[in-house]
């Protein structure tokens, strides 16, 4: 039984069947990649995990509980954090404030009327936030405004904001999209480092084969809204069906 169990999920947008009969199981403490050509339904599937979309059919169970119909903040409180394709951070706030917000969310839940406390007096929260910034090598930038960070640092910051919550499942939506090779390698190193330091389950949607094969322990190939195969990276590399649907296409370019 995986931490995330997806059974028979289907989603239709007007005349387009974006997903049909998707079955997927993400095991605890593994990095599970979901790959597929453009329009295969990867992002749609991810959006079904986090409460942005509700599938027409099927079920999505996280830790034995259904997430269907729950709001994004409720799903996050269950232990799923999400990294976006373009880093979503609080641009107007300082780096440390960016990291403190998820700390408050973890400690106080979805809403708390703490209007007469002072942020600076929350010693535990400040300490946790500083610690995670050290972890991602951003401690020296803690008072910078987030909007003035480089793109790579924004990605790091977003990662830190997710990690500080100790999520049971970390979802990554094309974390290296649009990055230069050097930045991509940095991100891979960062993710490997994260993986080595803590027990964490990651589900990663990715286009870049280099990223997928350096990180993933299991790979699901999605094509036209249905999973084609699910296997280890070694087996996927040589799989004829996959080559036809995805890698073959890539090699022709």
């Amino acid at each position, binding site marked *: 039984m995986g931490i995330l169990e997806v059974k028979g999920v289907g989603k239709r947008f007007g005349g387009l069947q974006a997903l049909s009969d998707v079955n997927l199981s993400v095991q605890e403490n593994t990095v599970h990649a979901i790959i597929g050509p453009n329009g295969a339904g990867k992002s749609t599937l991810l959006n079904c995990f986090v409460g942005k979309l509700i599938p027409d059919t099927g079920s999505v169970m996280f830790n034995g509980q259904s997430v269907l119909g729950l709001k994004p903040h409720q799903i996050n409180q269950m232990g799923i954090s999400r990294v976006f394709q373009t880093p979503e951070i*609080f641009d107007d706030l300082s780096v440390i404030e960016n990291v403190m917000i998820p700390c408050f969310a973890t400690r106080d839940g979805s809403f*708390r009327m703490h209007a007469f406390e002072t*942020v600076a007096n929350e010693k535990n929260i400040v300490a946790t936030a500083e610690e995670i910034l050290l972890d991602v090598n951003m401690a020296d930038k803690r008072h910078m405004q987030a909007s003035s960070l480089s793109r790579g640092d924004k990605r790091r910051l977003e990662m830190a904001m997710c990690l500080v919550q100790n999520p049971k499942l970390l979802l990554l939506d094309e974390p290296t999209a649009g990055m230069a090779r050097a930045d991509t390698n940095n991100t891979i190193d960062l993710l490997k480092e994260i993986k080595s330091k803590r027990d964490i389950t990651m589900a990663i949607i990715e286009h870049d084969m280099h990223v997928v094969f350096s990180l993933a322990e299991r790979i699901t190939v999605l094509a036209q809204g249905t999973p084609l195969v699910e296997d280890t990276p070694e087996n996927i590399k040589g799989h004829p069906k996959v080559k036809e649907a995805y890698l073959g296409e890539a090699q022709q370019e």
Partner: protein
Amino acid sequence: MLGLNNKDTRFLLIVVFLTLATPILLQPFPESSGMAQFNAGYPDLMQRFAIFGIFAIGFNILFGLTGYLSFGHAAFLGVGSYSVVWMYKLLDYNVLPGLVLAIITSGLFALLIGFISLRRSGIYFSILTLAFAQMSFNLAYSVLTPLTNGETGLQVYGNDPQYLIGENSPTSPHLFGLVMNESAKVNIGDWQFTFNNGYYFCAVIAILAFYMSLRIFRSPFGLMLRAVKSNQQRLNYTGLNSRPYTLAAFVISGMYAGLAGGLLAAMDPLAGAERMQWTASGEVVLMTILGGAGTLMGPVLGAGFIKYFENIFSKINDTVLHGWFGWLPDGVEDVIIFISHFFVGKSWHLTLGLLFMMVVIFLPGGLVEGGQRIAAMLRRDRAKTDDGDDGEHHPKTTPHVAE
């Protein structure tokens, strides 16, 4: 002190000093000088500074922190005024029960309007709040006449019950016998200073209101509100529900507006429907943006600025202008007065409009940003004279929300 760090304590003390010394600071010109008309230290105007300061501070908690632009806050102002006058009619002229009721009713009213309006954001939210405020205005003006006395406005009549009024109770608004419209006048040389009870009552409440807003700005709650403005999607995916946060901010700012409306009626025991009109809602938006939305001091500055213009610039009429330019040759004088006509007296709105445009274009952070730029320039000058070199690169830090 009071749960604030040193910098904020200093800041609060400066605000307290400025507020309490207002009757002196706003009377810089001797009575007999030609500039005396620019003195603003008379009770009616000073009360307005404090009251609209409170209104703008509250509005800023919603608009400045969360970015939700409400165009209907005057509705709460009106609700506050009506509550206070009703307490005069039912109990006596003591302002305290009325102000408590004003805060409660405007809070409940804000809860209702906020609950519905906050289902949308951006322009749709603004339109919804505007619609609610106009609805309230029209209800107060016509349908709810038994409650609001329609277009005449609500006031105290001789046959009102006033159950608590005693033999010797004051017959105008007071706080346990401290009559609001009484003043002490002090003459020093050619200067006259008016220390008005009503102003000081408003000033003390304004300081408390400012302190509350300072605490909110520094609290985790305030941090969440700023996060709502910055990136609501990220906030939701971080496990926080933005709806109750924005609703709480809306209700708090509605209560501030109700308190301000109540104080208006505490200074002058009248309440009229026109207080709820959309122009009044627009005015507080102008105040906040002019002063600097999202800053602590900005809304107060903006409120003072606009009220000063409204009351002082509008008083400059032809006679005054002739007095100023009388020494010029007749033809030139007429031309200058003709041009000035567009900017002063009844046309003061034009000057305000031009100033507002300039602030929005050149100082998007409002008057506060102007002050910060001047301070930064002075600091740079000083740094240059100190070591003659400021070529070092400093990474951009977050601007402190205080200044």
